[in-house]
């Protein structure tokens, strides 16, 4: 169990007063390793990788008799260029699959430790609760990025296989070389990953509230889904710009020529606010509560 390693490591470093940055890095590496060694995480990533495969096959089958219409964004462009499968898949996974996977990881971060009874041992290490929380958040963010890249990479592979790659037609009708298209795809993946930092902080906060990992996951996912439903009710039009899923699809603006930054900026700003609010709430809760488990 790697928890034990942490404790041992901590005992060794205790000589100096403040833990060195290197030590924090070690803690982070340890935490990331823990996250990605879990079988649950691997299954989540595998499911995420499967989504583009399903979407790709569905489009392939459907377009054999005429063009694709309706469905997720960009779907009519996929048949011309497999690269668009990346965008379609991200658009398809961003509303549910990605936040759900993230909810599992983030919700488990503190509550899982508490539930397993390992949290108090973790706190014996001279990390300090703030540092531990930051490390947990950082590893959750790493998961965001990895999960997004898994979807994107899988989609790129499936897209290249089923539809081929080539020059990319942007939404504005401009054609750019494949290299630039790939660069834009990478930027899109980056924006999608950043779109999730609000949910990650929310999950972490929920995770500090309860001792049950399952409850934390369920609540995080529940909040995400509820907000998305609220985001579609026209009568709530006035509050919608403040809900964190509101600008999620703005990553598509990276595919315009020239890029339309307004909504992307709003999206990232909103995510930063959510991350700060829920991050500091998690910190307030975690540093003041009694750890009994």
């Amino acid at each position: 169990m790697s928890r034990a390693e942490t404790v041992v490591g901590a005992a060794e470093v205790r000589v100096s007063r403040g833990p060195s940055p290197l030590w924090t890095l070690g803690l982070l590496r340890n935490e990331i390793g823990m996250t990605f060694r879990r079988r649950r995480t691997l299954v989540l990533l595998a499911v995420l990788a499967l989504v583009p495969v399903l979407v790709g096959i569905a489009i392939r089958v459907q377009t054999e008799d005429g063009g694709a219409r309706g469905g997720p964004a960009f779907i009519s462009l996929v048949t011309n260029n497999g690269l668009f499968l990346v965008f379609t898949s991200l658009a398809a996974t961003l509303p549910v699959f990605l936040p759900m996977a993230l909810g599992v990881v983030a919700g488990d971060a503190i509550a899982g430790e508490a539930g397993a009874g390992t949290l108090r041992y973790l706190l014996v290490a001279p990390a300090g609760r703030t540092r531990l929380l930051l490390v947990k958040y950082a590893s959750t963010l790493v998961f965001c990025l990895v999960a997004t890249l898994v979807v994107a990479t899988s989609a790129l592979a499936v897209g290249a296989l089923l539809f081929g790659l080539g020059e990319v037609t942007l939404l504005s009708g401009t054609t750019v070389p494949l290299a630039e298209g790939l660069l834009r795809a990478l930027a899109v993946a980056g924006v999608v990953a950043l779109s999730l930092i609000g949910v990650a902080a929310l999950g972490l906060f929920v995770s500090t509230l309860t001792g049950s990992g399952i409850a934390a996951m369920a609540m995080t996912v529940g909040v995400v889904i509820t907000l998305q439903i609220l985001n579609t009710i026209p009568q709530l039009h006035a509050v919608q710009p403040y809900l964190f899923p509101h600008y999620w699809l703005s990553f598509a603006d990276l595919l315009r020529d020239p890029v339309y930054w307004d909504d992307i900026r709003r999206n990232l700003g909103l995510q930063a606010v959510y991350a700060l609010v829920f991050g500091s709430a998690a910190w307030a809760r975690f540093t003041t509560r009694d750890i009994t488990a």
Partner: protein
Amino acid sequence: MPRNEASRVTGEWDDGGKRTGRRKVIRYGVPVAVAGVAAATIGLVPAFAGAGDPDLPEISAQDLIAKVAASDVQQLSGTVRTSTDLGLPELPGGMGAGALGSGQGKGGASADPKDKLMELASGTHTLRVAADGPDRQRVSVIDKAAEYSLVRDGAKVWGYDSGSNTAFRATGPESDAPKKGDQRRAMPKGLGDVTPQELAEHVLDAAGDTTSVTVDGTAKIAGRDAYQLLVKPKQAGSTVGSVRIAVDADNGVPLRFTLTPKSGGAPAVEAGFTSVDFAKPAASTFAFDPPKGAKIVDGDRVRTQRHDDAAGDLPKGLPGGLPQGLHEARAGDGGGLDVIGHGWTAIAKIEGEGEGEGKAGEGKEAAAGQKAGVPTGDAAKFLDSMGEKVTGSFGSGHVFSTRLVNALMTDDGTVYVGAVDRQSLIKAANAAK
């Protein structure tokens, strides 16, 4: 930061927990403060932007109109936000735009500019516009994860709809003649090459009895100082409350157009720049090659130009432009068209084979013997559910209301439409009998 807070907390707890409580409050204050600051920033930034109405030297309405007329800005690019709330009844299943777009419907996957630009007639949209001289323009409608672009470079006009990956090709007019003509038509005739000052005088003279034109304060729009021209109908019976046009103080370009109905509430039509740049747009902006794999539709006979103008010049609407535009739109519906009255309260009378006939037709066929052709049965019920039944010396009919435009459809199939209240419609119908 204490290394092992867990034990410390327990220690303090033993002391009585008072300090822990205080610390808790302080710590929980952080997220609350962050949320508060964020909310305040979001709430106050627009307020500050609004409060900072620029101090500009006084200007008379005449000088301001002259400024607009003298404006020779040929190059600009920017983002325009339009929001239209005409209060049209919601039709199920996106019928709204489709039905208006004269239903060429191939499942809504048309790249025809006409269909696309009809969609702008309701809701909120973001457009990117660019213009370089009279011959090169570009308008892009920014949709969620899709975009519709209309590019004109001289005689070539291209439309591209990314949602259906369809390109639309048309040949535009060689020169700018029709565009100039459009603008002139909105002004009184016989104004060949007058100076902007004279032109402004003429506009005000013509507006005189029906319209009041004043300068009403200043505003900051898209980061530019602007004067606000306030245009108000003087005629009672108009549903238009006021039209406000913000004009760039520097170069006379209209930056925002707001039309508020008399009934109050949100503007019925608002179109304005959210960002604007008067530098020459890059030449590549107006270059368009149909993407590989896109379906290409040829649509030379379509009145692309008119719609191009309509979208590109939306904020530039001149005082008389709107009612006139409405009539033009209605005129397209065919039938015998008559315009009753003038200015803001002009009412279009559409007789015979107008659109009313189509709807009431069912009843008319059935009751061929009946002179009035009163719709019966289901048709009548349908009409009753859509409009309000009214009677007058003209007979009886139904009034269909929106926030801006009211229409009276008499039972014999004549339609009266105008941006006027229902009393004026009934009066017009009575007078016409």
